[in-house]
Each structure stands twice: as structure tokens, then as C-alpha cells.
């Protein structure tokens, strides 16, 4: 049974608390026991506690598959981009270099690229992916468009990303603040590369852009 069309994966980095429940749960999967396929990073811990969980975005035209010289990366009919096929993968790492989201990794010990396959063993039998099931902040959410619209009126799902001249559409959605998006919203990743995180995402007033500890003397 394929993954139902109407169920989608949504990531909301604003909700992420960096707890790593997703990372720890992912490493429990029987197909990659002990290894997590999720990347969870502090943007810059010195500046902020902000963290971002990254699962495979499951591109409609996966760059990883396009650059694979061994044709080892397949996309299922329901849009899930799978880990490299073991008999084909030559562990060249082209996909690692090409993926704009930095998702695939080559495991040298087994000479194989592995990455998030949206818990195909679970989603294909009607369960949610493990990470989105356990995530205590629900920064990782799996459900229908209707559910996300009802549960998260302050956010809008976006699945188009701009990397320089490359536009990528993905099966996975990123939640953006509702007020900031245009009718055909996209995230310009390249232009945000040099941004630094702020200590606090929300300030008391728009003009109040200062460090809450500015007046504390030591």
C-alpha cells in the first residue's frame, strides 16, 4: 500500500525546541538501526537556542537522483525519494554534494548512501513517520492540509525553495509565518545564507530590537 496522497509532512522550525526526540527515535528504525537519518542542528548556539530539524524534503525532481551516475536513487509513485538501492550504489557521494538541503550521507562502512525515506515502512501501512509521531513540539507534523490549516492558522505551508537559479518543489512543507508570504510563496534559501539567528524571535515592539540583557552590568 503506498503512502496516501492526502497525508503530508510539515516542518515548523519555529516550534523546534532542539530536544532530539526525533533523532533518537529515528535511530530506532529497523532499516538503519543505530543511525539517525534526521539532521538537527543549532543555527549558532552562541547566539540563540534556535535549532532546525531537517528530514529529506522529497523533491519532485530530486537533484540527488539526477546526479546519481548509478541510477541508484528512486522516487516511488507516491513521491517518496528513497535511500540508494544497495546493489546499485557506488558510494561516490555525488548526491551528498548535490542535495541543496544537505540530506544524504554516505556510510563508508557499508558503502551506501542512506537518508530519510519518510519511514516508508510505517507510512505505507497508514502510520505516521516515527519522528513526527514522537516530536513533543510538533515541529514535525504529519497529516492532511485541512488539519494543518485548522491547527495552525498563524502559519502557511510552503514547498518551493530558491537556491540561486534553481527552484525546487518538494513533497515536504516548511511552515512560514502567515503574514509574510505572497500568493505563490517560496523560501529564498541562498539569500538567507548569511543571516544570523536572533536571541529572541519576537520583540516587544517592532522598534524594540535590542538585547534583553543590554542593561545588565557585570
Amino acid at each position, binding site marked *: 500500500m503506498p503512502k496516501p496522497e492526502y497525508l503530508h509532512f510539515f516542518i515548523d522550525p519555529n516550534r523546534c525546541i532542539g530536544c532530539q526526540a526525533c533523532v533518537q527515535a529515528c535511530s530506532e528504525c529497523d532499516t538503519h538501526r543505530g543511525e539517525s537519518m534526521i539532521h538537527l542542528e543549532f543555527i549558532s548556539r552562541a547566539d540563540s537556542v534556535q535549532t532546525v530539524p531537517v528530514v529529506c524534503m522529497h523533491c519532485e525532481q530530486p537533484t540527488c537522483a539526477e546526479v546519481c551516475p548509478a541510477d541508484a536513487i528512486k522516487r516511488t509513485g507516491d513521491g517518496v525519494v528513497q535511500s540508494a538501492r544497495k546493489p546499485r550504489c557506488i558510494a561516490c557521494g555525488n548526491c551528498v554534494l548535490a542535495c541543496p538541503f544537505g540530506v544524504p550521507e554516505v556510510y563508508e562502512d557499508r558503502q551506501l548512501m542512506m537518508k530519510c525515506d519518510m519511514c516508508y515502512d510505517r507510512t505505507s501501512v497508514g502510520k505516521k513517520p516515527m519522528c513526527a509521531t514522537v516530536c513533543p513540539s510538533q515541529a514535525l507534523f504529519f497529516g492532511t492540509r485541512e488539519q494543518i490549516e485548522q*491547527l495552525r492558522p498563524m502559519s502557511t505551508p510552503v514547498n518551493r525553495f530558491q537556491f540561486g537559479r534553481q527552484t525546487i518543489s518538494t513533497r515536504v512543507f516548511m511552515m512560514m509565518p502567515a503574514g509574510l508570504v505572497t500568493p505563490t510563496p517560496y523560501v529564498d534559501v541562498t539569500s538567507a545564507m548569511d543571516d544570523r539567528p536572533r536571541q529572541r524571535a*519576537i520583540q516587544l515592539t517592532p522598534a524594540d530590537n535590542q538585547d534583553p540583557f543590554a542593561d545588565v552590568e557585570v
Partner: protein
Amino acid sequence: MSGARLSTSAEPERLVKTHCCFCGQQCGIQLKVRDNEVVGFEPWEEFPFNRGMLCPKGVKRYLQGAHPDRLTTALRRDESSPDGFSAMPYADAVAKVAAAIADIQQQYGPSAMGVLSGASLTTEKTYLMGKFARVCLRTPYIDYNGRLCMVSAGAANKKAFGIDRTTNPWSDMVGTDVIWIAGSNVAECSPITTNYVWQAREQGAKIIVQDPRITPVARTCDLYLPVKPGRDAALFAGVLQLMIEHGWIDQDFIDTLTVGFDEVAAYCRQWTAERTAQVTGVPERALRQAAEWWGTAKTSFLFHARGIEHHSNGVQNALGTINLVLATGRIGKSKSGYGTITGQANEQGGREHGQKCDQLPGWRDIANPDHRRHIAGIWGIDEKDLPGPGVDAYELFRKIDAGEIRGLLSICFNPKVSLPDNAFVTRALEKLEFYAAIDFFLNDTARHADIVLPGSLQEEDEGTVTQVEGRVIKINKAVDPPGDARQDWRIVQDIAGALGRPHGFTFTEPREIFDELRRASKGGVADYSGITYEKIDAQMGVFWPCYSEDPETGRPVDHAGTPRLFEPGSYNRVAKGAGPFYFPDGKARFNVAEFRTPVDDASDDYPLFLTTGRVVSHFLSGTQTRRIGPLVNQYPEPRIELHPKLAAKLGIKDEDWTIAETRRGAITLRAMVVTTIRPDTIFIPYHWPGEKSANRLTVAAQDPISKIPQYKVCGCRVRKADGPPAYASVLEPQQ
């Protein structure tokens, strides 16, 4: 790493629906079991509180069971053995414990024995421990590690409401106008609560966070109050004063359903916004914004945790939050509530049924003659044989130090790591003539024991616990204890038997203990009489009070429980219909919540504030989580969090070995230089023992009412270390 063993891929024989063994959220989880071993987990999405969600501790908790450190035999202290202990037969160990207890009590009297218990035990066990100390040992000296945790909140709740429980189910948070989080690092200490907070925000709630650190929830909250450690009561008084000045209070509610407001208002008058800002370090405009949002909201939720409770002024701090709630009248309604976020697994149930030094089952008072008679009747003893109030856990160590208490039995408590100024605790432990510990791993305190009895892990027994919302839930047994290990209640009963005092300690299963507890609690404020294991299963938890007899009519009733307290028109046994609160007049109490400067505050010699707390991948003294490899990897060792402004002044860079020093001692840890903490404050997590123990530094000052220690602030100084500490080159046995 021993704890990094991962489960095999083989299919489990069965899934056991139960709950996590760690914090007070008590997430539902299904444990995979094969060959009498917990080999993995599967989310339990039907359980309503967490619907499958788990934090990293819950995900990896299954790894503790087959750990090589698991105690599977009794141990006796043996100086000739390399690790200080050697195995002994269980029956001999029990006989030896009983003989030593009898000896000490014969020589020095019954009160020469002390008992330390814990709030991670099931309610059945906590009930049994209270009964064991009073009935079998006939000592008043029992207390528990909840003393380190929630007693400030409990005492404040008792003073203000006459009952001690969170008022609403967490689902009430969604749809509220404002959530005020006072001193709670929700994301790391109660992660599942985060989704409720975020969900409330998506529906329009404004979030206010009061904390000296920009925690993950503070990062995206609407209003951040960067309070200076130990100044919380001043902040609450200042905000209430602003609300009174602007008329943002519910005078009708205050007049009809509360008493004591005028005294509180008179006290707050001195807390002008200007003075409050100066004392608390919170800018005046932030205070005004908080007062406006809180004062003008239609619905609200306020919750607090150890951040404001772990203070020598902890009860006053908690009362300050309650005054803010009562002044608005927003309590006892579907989208308005108040609560304290419980810390340990059974922090709620563990503080209701008699392991607390001044308490009897059903949240009864050990000094109250009526309460004593009722419980003595249940226990089949003469009321005059029931000891009176004992002392708090820290005072119990002072009594050991003074030679008044000569013998100790401990379970589920690791005071050598968890009590403040723990060098003193270590000295006291060495003064004991006899110390027996019941434990599943040899914790740092148990290493001082003469005899260690191998107890049970949470998944090796059944029973109930009461989680953060006041919901009584059922822990189900997944596996049998290994080797000679026994369920804790059996061990306690074996000791009673070996002492020749088996009366009242002949239960054959936890259900029998629960049934006696139900009868004992009947008629008390924490009335569990209508709760059964079957009802818990059928309803996915039962909120107490849950009656077997209608309190109004006295007729038998099939009561579903009380999800929400203080609803208009609600009946309780204390008020008898006079009002919703648990006092004879049915009214809530305002209490003057006075600000007092912390003991051992920052000073010229120790100019910084030290504050302590948790990280998400560890739990309490780390006895379990420091043995689970993936959780150790996530946060391998404690660090000293400090602001770059302070670090620059002291010449400290990120990762540098750094010494934090207080009047009690000094520890050397690596620095973590971050802008997310007040520059006048450092933070150290407390999950580690020995040279890395934050509680070498903390002060043993205690709240005069609740006796909670002041973990969250003391004067401190910091300097760069000349080099790595000696421990850095030694591989720890636990990791």
C-alpha cells in the same frame, strides 16, 4: 559504551501499554517485550495526554532494563572487594537489615531509624513507605525527595486553595488568551507541554515567559521577562500593583469568592513599577506590558515550576503567582487555570498519601487528631502508637549528623547528588551506624550503604501514579525483575516480616495496597476511593478527587473523577457547598507574598548568581540516564553556561576549563559561552555526581514553610582554570 546497546530487529512477543518512567508528564508509551526483556518501544497514540509524543528520554528509556549495572543480587559492603561490595543471598541480606534495625531501635529507641523515600515510586509504594515507617518502625522520621521538588507549590496551594493539585487538564490551555510561564524551562523539563503551549499560541494566545535564561520557549514567546534570580516575588507584587492601579482586576470575584485581598493590595503598594524594575532586572515597559496582557485577558493559564519554587522564598513566590490568578478571577473555568508542572514521575501522587513527614494518606495531616484516628483505624493500630510529625529530608541529615538518627533505610532517593551542599550529606552518611538502600542501580548514595537490596525498575511492577494534571494513571508490568531483584514493596514487607512485625505488611499484589489506600484516602481531600484499576484503563486515567460515595448525599456513586477544580457551584467536603474552594467558607485565600532577598545572595566576594537546572536528555541525579548511551552522547557532561560579556571580562572562551566557586566549594567544568543567559548569572545542570556535581556549590538554605532548598540562586564567582581537572583524564565507570 554499555548503555548504547540497541534492540535487536526480532519481532517483539507483545506490546505493553504503560507510561514513561521519568518525569511528571507520564507520557503513554508501549514497551516492546521479548524473552522477559524490554527491547524497544512503540508510540501509544491513543493516550490522550501525549498522543504518541515522547522526549528523547522516553524514546531511549527502554535501554535501562538489561544494563550490565542492573543490580541482580543483594550486596554487602566489603572493603576487600575492588568495587567495595560483594554479593550475598537475598534472605541473608534481609535478615541482616532487620537485625541491624532491631539493634539500633533497641539501643537508641524507635526514632533512631530514618527512612528516605521518593516520588518516582508508584503511589502504592509511597503509601506503603509511609505506613512502614509509622507502623513497622514506629519512627516519625520519614521524608521523601519531593522535598527537593514541589513542596513550595504544595504549601502555597494548601494556603490559597485548601487543596494541592493543578486546576485544569492541559487541553484547557488551547484557546486561552494568555499563558504565563514562570520559572519553567518547559522545552527541556516537560517537553510534551510544549505542544500545548504552541497550540494555544496558534489559536491566538500570547505567551509570557519569566526566566533568567532565554530557553527554547522563551526564544519565541511574545513577552520575555529576564528576571534576576531570586526576585520573583517582587516581580509578581509589582505586576499586581500595576493591575490594581489600572483597575485590571475582577473586584466581583475578589469580593464574593476570596478573602485577604486588602492586605495583599497594601503590601503591593510599595512595589512601584520603577522599584520593581530596579529589584527584578526586568525593564519597566516589560512589566507594564505583562500587567496589561495579564490584567485585560478574558481567559488565561499560569503555570510555574522549580524556577520560582527552588528558593528559600519559594512558598512566597508561588503565592505571588496565585495572587495574580485570584485577582483576575480566572480560575475554575474551561480556558482558565493555574498549575505547577510536576517534576518527578509521581510527584503529585507521591505527595498525597503519607510519605511526607507531616502527612497521612488522603492528604491528611499527621497532627490532626481526627485524621490520626481515621488512619489508625485503617491500619489497625492504636492512635497513640502512631508517631507525630517528623522532619524534612535535609533536617533528617542534620539529625544524622547530630547523632539522633543512627540508622537509615533509603529507596528512590540519591541525596549525595541531589541535596544542596552535598559535602555535608556525604559526611553525614559516613556517620550512620547502619544504612540499607533499596535500588536497581548502585547510585552514588547507595555506595555508602552497608547492605543494598536489589529493587525493581518501573517496568518490573504495576501500580498507579498521578501525573501533572492530577490524572491517576496505571503503570503496567512488562517484565519480571531479574535474578534476586524484587519488587520494592515485597522487599519492604520482607523486612517487616524479618523484624517480626508483619502486621499490615502481608499484601500479595499492588492492587491490594491500592484498595487499602482507597479506603485510607476516603473522606480526605485527595480522595481516591472511587478509582479502580479498571476505571483507569477504561477512561485512560482518572482525575482525583474521585469518590465512592457522593460527598453531598453520602450515597454510593460511580464517579468519573474531577478533571477541573473550583468550577462554579461545585461541591466539596470541606466547604460543604459554601463555595468552590476547599475551606469551610468555600473562598480562596489571598496571602501576602513577601519578597525577601535570597540567602547567600550575590555579594562583593561572590558577585555572580549561580542557578541550576536540567537538560533534556538527563533526569534528576542521572542514575538512569547517565547509563543510557544515546542520552549520554546527547549531553555528555555538565558545562558552565555564561554570557560572552562576562566571559570577555574574565578572559574565558567557549570550551575553556572554568572554575565556579561558592562559599561551599568549587568545581571545574568547561565553559559554554552563549548570549542566552543574563550576564550576571551562570547556569550549571545538576545531573552529575562527584567532581562535576553542581550541588557541591548550592546553598542548604531552605524555605521556612516548605523546607525546599534554594537551588536556584546563590552567590558565586568564576575564573578560568589553569588546566583540565584531574577527573578529565579518568574514564567514568558509568559511561
